[in-house]
Structure formats: structure tokens, C-alpha cells
């Protein structure tokens, strides 16, 4: 049911798509809502001199609240680097990243940590969970680190949506790969972050488990108005998003709204993958 109630307000706000991939999308509204995250002139250079690699070469992007964005691109296109920089796990060589109103570049290490803990959710490709903790303990870990108790109503809702009620006291080694990723998703959601970053969340899952996880992420956006940014190279996974951003050689080369898997595949072919 939730699938049908796609909340598209934010995504629809992008009225027009400029063909020039380097320009900032324009908004027709007089009052621009603050996006959940944005990158401006983001440049990341690894190494120096002759061997320098420009992983990000001037990326300008905004992620509106309540949107589900997929970032695609061939290997080495800079999509993981972009995600890491957006999430405050890595720093830019130049340019700015904002989470809400907060410019990450101005934050100290301790403030960055707190930002990740309180305002960002993570789903990694693998190794998302602490093997010593039960599913329930893993889900509430960021809250526990913040010394906060989870909002019981919200916690119950999340647990039920992920369908983990009967696995809560199991340790990760007793869970399937799909269940583990769903626990990770629940953990990302339970602290009600402003934005969730997912790095190839279905990369290690079979298509059924992957489908379940993606459906859950979709529901989080639709039902709970969550904002998700997901890096993937799987067009089927990307098709669950509202919008796909294509990256190549550290630049945003294209965008696609209301994507389907077929269109995404075609697009990726154009990018030479």
C-alpha cells in the first residue's frame, strides 16, 4: 500500500533538468526549501603532482528532503568518494558539503562524529553489524552511543516494517545476509536521521533478499518521509529510487527521474559500462 503513496513533493520540485550536467538544477519556487544535503563545486584529489587523481571534479548536487536518490556510474567514476564525502567520512580537497544547514568543512572531528551519530544513517555493503551484539542491540547502537533511549513507538514501527520482530535477540551470525542488511537499515532509521547513505546495500545479497531490502528502503521514504542517497551499480536497485544521478570521471553527467531498470541499463551503456 505504501508503495502507492509515493510522496514525491520534493522530487517534483525539480521542474526542469538542465542538460548541462555541471550546472545546479534550478527551482522555480520563490522560497527554496533547504535540501537534506548538497555538494557545491566538490573536488577531491588523491595523490599529488603527476600521479594526482581527481576522484571528484567539481560536483554540484542537491538532495531534497524526502527523496530517494541513486548514484550510478562506472567503477572509478567517483560515486563512492562522493558518498563518503557527503557522509562526513572523507574530506573534500575543495568545495563544500552541507548536511541541512551545516557545512561539513567547518566541523572538527568530534563534531563530525556527533553529526554522523545524530543526523546521518548508514547502510554499508557488508559488515554492518557488530558480531557481539544482538539484532536489537545493533539497531539501537547509535542511540546508545548518544546515551539516548529509543522512542519506543518509532522503534516498534521500524522493527515491524523490517519484519525482524522474531529475530531481535539473535546475533548477526544467526541471521541471513538479507536479514543482516535489514537490521542495518533498521539501525539507520531508528535514530530518525536527516539523511541515510547507503553504499551498495544489496551488493552481497541475492535478488530476492535485495528486493526485500529495497522495498523496505522505498517504504521508509514513502511512509516515513525519509531521505536516502544510495550508491549502486545495479540498475534494478537504482530503479527503486525517485531519481538517478549518473557520475563519470568525477563529474555528474546525467540525471534521470522516475527511472526504470531498462532505462537505467541503457543509460549506463551510454556511459560505457
Amino acid at each position, binding site marked *: 500500500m505504501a508503495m502507492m503513496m509515493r510522496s514525491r513533493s520534493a522530487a517534483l520540485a525539480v521542474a526542469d533538468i538542465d542538460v548541462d550536467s555541471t550546472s545546479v538544477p534550478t527551482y522555480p519556487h520563490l522560497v527554496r526549501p533547504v535540501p537534506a544535503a548538497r555538494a557545491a563545486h566538490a573536488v577531491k584529489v588523491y595523490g599529488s603532482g603527476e600521479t594526482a587523481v581527481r576522484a571528484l571534479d567539481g560536483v554540484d548536487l542537491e538532495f531534497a528532503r524526502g527523496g530517494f536518490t541513486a548514484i550510478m556510474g562506472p567503477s572509478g567514476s567517483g560515486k563512492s568518494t562522493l558518498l563518503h564525502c557527503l557522509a562526513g567520512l572523507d574530506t573534500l580537497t575543495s568545495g563544500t558539503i552541507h548536511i541541512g544547514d551545516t557545512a561539513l568543512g567547518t566541523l572538527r572531528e568530534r563534531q563530525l562524529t556527533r553529526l554522523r551519530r545524530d543526523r546521518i544513517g548508514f547502510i554499508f555493503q557488508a559488515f554492518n553489524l*557488530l558480531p557481539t551484539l544482538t539484532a536489537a542491540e545493533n539497531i539501537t547502537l*547509535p542511540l546508545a552511543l548518544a546515551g539516548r533511549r529509543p522512542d519506543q513507538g518509532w522503534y516498534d514501527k521500524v522493527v515491524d516494517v523490517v519484519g525482524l520482530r522474531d529475530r531481535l535477540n539473535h546475533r548477526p551470525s544467526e541471521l541471513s545476509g538479507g536479514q543482516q542488511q535489514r537490521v542495518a537499515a533498521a539501525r539507520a532509521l531508528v535514530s530518525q536521521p536527516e539523511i541515510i547513505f547507503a553504499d551498495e546495500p544489496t551488493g552481497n545479497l541475492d535478488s530476492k533478499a535485495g528486493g526485500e531490502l529495497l522495498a523496505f528502503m522505498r517504504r521508509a521514504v514513502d511512509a516515513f518521509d525519509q531521505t536516502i542517497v544510495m550508491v549502486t551499480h545495479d540498475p534494478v536497485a537504482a530503479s527503486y529510487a525517485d531519481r538517478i544521478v549518473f557520475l563519470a570521471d568525477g563529474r555528474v553527467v546525467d540525471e534521470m527521474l522516475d527511472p526504470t531498470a531498462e532505462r537505467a541499463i541503457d543509460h549506463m551503456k551510454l556511459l560505457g559500462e
Partner: protein
Amino acid sequence: MRRLVRGALAHTTRLIGTALAVALAVTLVSGTFILTDTIDGAFHKASADTAESSDLVIRSTALFAAQGTSLPEREPVPESLVSQIAAIPGVKAVWTAIQGYAELVDKQGNAIAPKGLPTVGGSWAPSDSLVAGKAPSPGEVAIDIDTARQYGLQLGDKIKVLFSGDSQEFTIGGLLRKAGDVIASTKAIFDAATAQKVLGAAGQVDAIPVQAEAGTSPQALRSRINAVLPARYEAVTSAQVAKEAAESWTKAVGFLPTALMLFAAVALLVGAFIICNTFSILVSQRARELALLQALGAGRAQLIGSVLFEAVAVGLVGSAAGVLLGAGAARGLLVAFHHLGFELPGPAAAFHLRTAVVSVAVGVVVTVLAAFPAALRATRVAPIGGLGALDGSAGRGSARRRLVVGLATTGAGLALVLDGVLGGPGRAVVVVAVGAAALLVGLAALIPLVARPAARMIGAPLVRVFGQPAFLGRENAMRSPRRTASTAAALMIGIGLIGVVSVLAASMKASATQTVDDSLRADFVLTSTGVAGAAGGVPPAVVDRLSHTPAVARVSQILGGQWGQDGRTQTLLAVDPAAVTTMHQVDPASEAAVRRLDDAGVLVRDTTAERYGWKVGDKVPMTFARTGTRQMRLEGTFASNAVRTDYIISLGAYAANYAQQLALEVDVTLAPGLAPADGRAAITAALADYPVVKIMDHTEVVRAQEQQVDRLLVPVTALLALSVAIALLGIANTIALSIHERTRELGLLRAIGMARKQLRSMIRSEAAIIACLGASLGVGIALFFGWALVSSMRHVGVTELVFPYTQLLGLAALATAAGMVAGMLPARRAASLAVLDAISSDK
């Protein structure tokens, strides 16, 4: 093979902690060798120096050589022999040697017994060499230059000297070069006639040194002299005398190397736990690599070899460092000896090749043995992806086997220890020691089974205080029970032994207090300020003086001596049968036996008499150095645990069989109605010219005994602390290795918002929990072994069992805190990991 070696070398940095543990353990081994060799060499040199001037020495024969004493324990030689010897052809020079108790008094009237070491008085010998002045003539004394400098004494100064008899005043006529004399820290040398008067007896000397004419061999001259000597006297070469003296001293301190080696063994055992743990972790971390090697066709022997090669390398490096550390430690100890006034002549520290070879061999063998189980496990990795089996959480079958083996070993050890304790004295110490070792190993095997719940319990208060980080740390401590257990077991051993020592110390102190309270009836006990035994003691004149003091109602002295029993050295006490029981109350039966004691009799401890099957009236053969073997009549037995020997003779028997007559203690009761303070004042006044005598009331006696206990137990604790240090190193090491394994996990935690501070707190908590587990187990062990040890020492006067709970809890708390500190280094390293690198690490 080269490939395997290279693989092994890749872990170098991870093995530093292990090498350090080996180094610390080997330090004690090599340090013990160096110290023993140095002391040995010093004794030999000292004895050789003393014997340098003469070729032969004529002395009375002795059937028994006392150990560790500088005073003559032989019958004197008649001075008349001198002229007889001088007439023998081939004799170039002959003189007399007399030694005895002579203590110098400084300008303030205090006895000069620096740091409690005894003073030796003697007669002038041609080998004595002077820095200033001349050989002493009557009325003069030559003293050693060091003492003179230290106390501001100069040629021509008047100085008072204490003897067994009355003290006298002398003029300092000469300053002696300090010969290599280990024994006496100060020297007082007189001319032969004076020495005979103040140290010996008229017409008698202790020995007659002889110098051979050039061209006459000492051996030839010896036979010539022996041919004319009366039966009870003998001529021996000076070399022989020097050798005997050195051997006597070496024997007297013979317990030292053994004791030190025991501590080294403990340190090695603790080190072995660390090594075993490290290699087991390394093998499980290398599981993937080992599986690959096996899949590629590496044989069993090659896999074992690759692990053992690493062990040999670590053992070699660690041991080599340990040998150097040992040399440094021995040197430090020698410096400490120097400051204690115990000067060792000869080379500063004797370093023999044997020290290096044996130390390194021991270090390498222990390392390889400890690494062997891990090496064996390396071959059991399934060729493809055998990761799960090696992560330390062993299967159910292994747990049951562990339970059975652990319980069996613990049970056997427990049985042996209990048999040793409850079976009474006479049980072989070795059996009890083996039992104790078995008990420790058995417990160590069982710890993994309880590590998880134990860590949960121990961590609970930490979690309450430090919250989530401590919770995560506790989970980490619980995740690999075997790893946690063997890390904790190492600490358990060190803390356990320190705990035993503190139980023993508390019990010994309490026993001393109890004995004084229960049985000391004397008002004051007088002892020498110097070290009792070797050459210090209360001069006989003191007893004489006190018996003429009106304030004193009764005086009784107790002397101590050594004697030989079938080649073994035994001790005895000599008492005044009429007076001693009024000073020291004993049970009625023992008291009756003491009252029966005459000068031809001996009292024997009941258990000892039983062991030898002696009945009252039997003859007990006792060999005295001075008088040979005497058949002493067994007059009775005693049971009192307050008596610190198994044999008691009368003062008369002592005087007949021993040369020196210094008392271990003199007991005094005051005249009725006299206040203690007045009594003390009266005694002090009567003994004003005997500054060597210390007057103690009951409280002071207790305090003196407590100090004696501390003197013994403080160094023991210090030596055991090294084992604890190794165990703490082990904690740091295990955690550092675990962190390496958990890099990705740490990255994840940081990514989802764990602050550096929280990360450090998590790792410190894990360290603290492991340390607390080890320390708690150690305290448990200390309680049991403390009980066992104290129970088995009842017959040597340790009658009270006291558990110093506060001290033990403090010890455990200290160890836990130290464990937390040990975790700080790996914690800091973990906190400095770059989050992104950690997440994308393949570990």
C-alpha cells in the same frame, strides 16, 4: 620455505609485545646467573686475598664446617706450637692468627656496624697493607681506611672497641687498605699479643700461618709439619683454606640462586601463557593464508615450520634482549648492594658465556614450546575457507574435553596440595610444588569455561558507570573466552603468588604478635643492633653486667649455633634451663623437659624425635666444629611452635662445644614493682658502654619481627611484580592483536558515530575486565595457597592464619587499574585509525 619465512616476518610488529615478554622473563634467568657468578667470584677473591701471604695454615681439625660465619668455629691451637713449627726446616716465617668479635664505636658513642653488617677483629698479618701509619703496637689499633673516612677518624684518634669481654680504648695507629673482604664491612687489627688478650685466650691462637722458604714446596712442607703435629691439629695449604672459606660462603647464600631461579621459572610460565596466546591469535588471523598454502600443497611439516620459525625468531630476539636487560639488572643490584655497605671485590659483574648461552636457550625453548599448540592448530585449518574453526570459540566437544582434563588436573593438584598440608611435616616439598603447579594449570584450563559469565559479572559495574562503550568492551571480552582466559590466567599466576606472599606475611606478623602476647614473660629483650648470627650478637659481658644491676631480677640468654648431622647442617639454640621458661612460657610438658636439661643433654622437637625414632635416654650424635662428634643424651622433647629450632642444648653444653659466645638474645625481668620506664632507664645506664645492644619491650619485639618479615617478603614481592608486569604486557598485546582483527568493526563504530573517547573507553574497559578477571582469580588462589602454606608452616612458628583482605582487594584493584592502563596504548592506536581506511580494510 623462503615464502613461508617471508609470510612470518610480515607480522614483526605484532610480535614485539611477545618478544618483550620473553625478554622480561629471560632477564631474571640471566640476571640470576650474573649475580651468582659475581658473588661467587667475590667470595673466591676475598678468600684468596686473605690467604695470599702464607703458604700453609696450621689449625685444629674440624669434622664439621659451619656455613656463612667469619668467626672461628674451631678449637684454638696452643701458641706453644709456634716455636716447634719455626724449627722445622723449610719454614721461612711463622706467626699467629687470631680473630674475634671487635666492634668499633664512633665519636658519638654509637657502634659502627654500617647497615647492620658485622665487624671483624683480628691480629696483624704480614699480608695486611697500610695506607698510612704503621702496624699496630700494644695500645693501638689499625682500622680500614673506608670506615676511617666515613666516620671522620684519623691517625692518633682515640677509639673505643667493644669485645666479648670488657670494652677498651685504643689509639688508631694505622689505616688499612681495604682488602677484598666481603664479610666484614669494618676491620679492627691489633698486634698479636693484644689480639690474644681481647679476642682469644692466653696461650691460644686460632691458627698458625706458615710461609715456606723459597725452593720448598708447600705440599712437601705440609707433610713435614703434619708428621710432627699432635693428633688434633693439621697443616693445610692456604689455597685449601681459601677454597673452604669460599665454599662455605657460597653454600650459605646457596638458597639465593635457587630462589631467584624459582622466580625466573614463574616469569617464564607467565611468559609462556602470553606466547601461547599470541601465536594462537596469529595463527587464527593467518587462517586464510594457511588454508591457501595448504591448498597449494604445503605439507604439515612446512606449516608447523612456518609457525615455529616465527617462534624461534621471537625467542632469539627476546632472549638476547633479556640477557642484556639481565646484565643491567644485575649491575643495578650490585650498585644497590654497594649502597647497603655490602662491597663485592673483583670484577663489577661477572658475565660468562654460559650465562648468554643458557639464557637464550631457555628463552627459545620456552617460546617454541609455548607456540607449539598454535603450530599444530595451523595444520588443522581446512584447505578452503577454514576461518570459522580457528576463531577461538571452540566447539562443544572441545569444551567437554577441556572440562574433563581441567577438572582432572585441578583435582590431582588439589589432592597433592591437601595431602601435603594435612599430612603434616615431612611431606616432600617437591610433591606439594608439583601439586600447586598442576592446580594452576588445571585452573587455567578451566577458566575459558567460566570466562564468559565471569566477564559479564565483572563488567556489570563498569557498564553502569561508563555506559555503552563499557558494554561493548565487555561484549568484546566475552566473545573469545579462551583468549580472555589465557590472558587472565597469566595475571592470575602473578597476582596469586603476590597474594600468597601477603597472606604469609600477615600470618607471620600475627603469629609473632601472638607468640609475644602468649609466651613472652620477660620485660625486656636485648639483641645486637647488627645482624644476629654471623658475627654479631650480645657480648657475654652484658649478661654479667645485668646480673649485677639491682633493677634486674633475672637474666637469661639464648645463643644459636650450627652443628652437623650426617653431613647436613642443623641449627640449635642454647638456653639457661633454670631461667628460660620464666622468660618464655611454654606448655607444661616442654617446660618440665627444659628443667631436666643438663650439660650432656639435648631436647628435640617431638615430631623430629619421632621421625628419627629417638626415645628419651637415647644418644643423639651431634657433630660440632670445635669439638667433633658428641653423643648427647635425649633429655626430653618439646612441642612449642614458638621455638624456631628442633634442637635445644644448655648454656654449659654450648660453652663446651662452641668458640664464639655471643648471644642471639638476652631476656630480662625487672625487679618487682619497678615501672617499665625506670627499668629501661636502669638497663640503659648499666649498658652505656655497650652501644651495640638494643633494648626492646614487647611492642618493640613485635615491631622488630614484623620488620624482619618485611625485609624478607618485600624483595620477593618485587620479584613477583615482574611476572605481573609480563602479564600486563600480555593484556596489552592480546588487545592490540584483537584490535587488528577488528579493524573493520572499529571503522563501522566510528562511522555510525562512536567518538574517539568512547572507542578508547571501550578498549580500556575490555582490558580492565580481563585484568580484573585475572586478579580476582589470583586473589582466590592466594586465599587457598595462603591457607595451604601457612597451615604447613605451623611447626616453624607460623601459628596464626590471617587473610589481609584489604590488602588483597587493594592488590586486585591495583591490577585492574594497571590492566586499564595497559589497554591505553592499543586504545590510542585504535582511536587514531582513519575511519574510511578501517571500513574498507579486509580485516
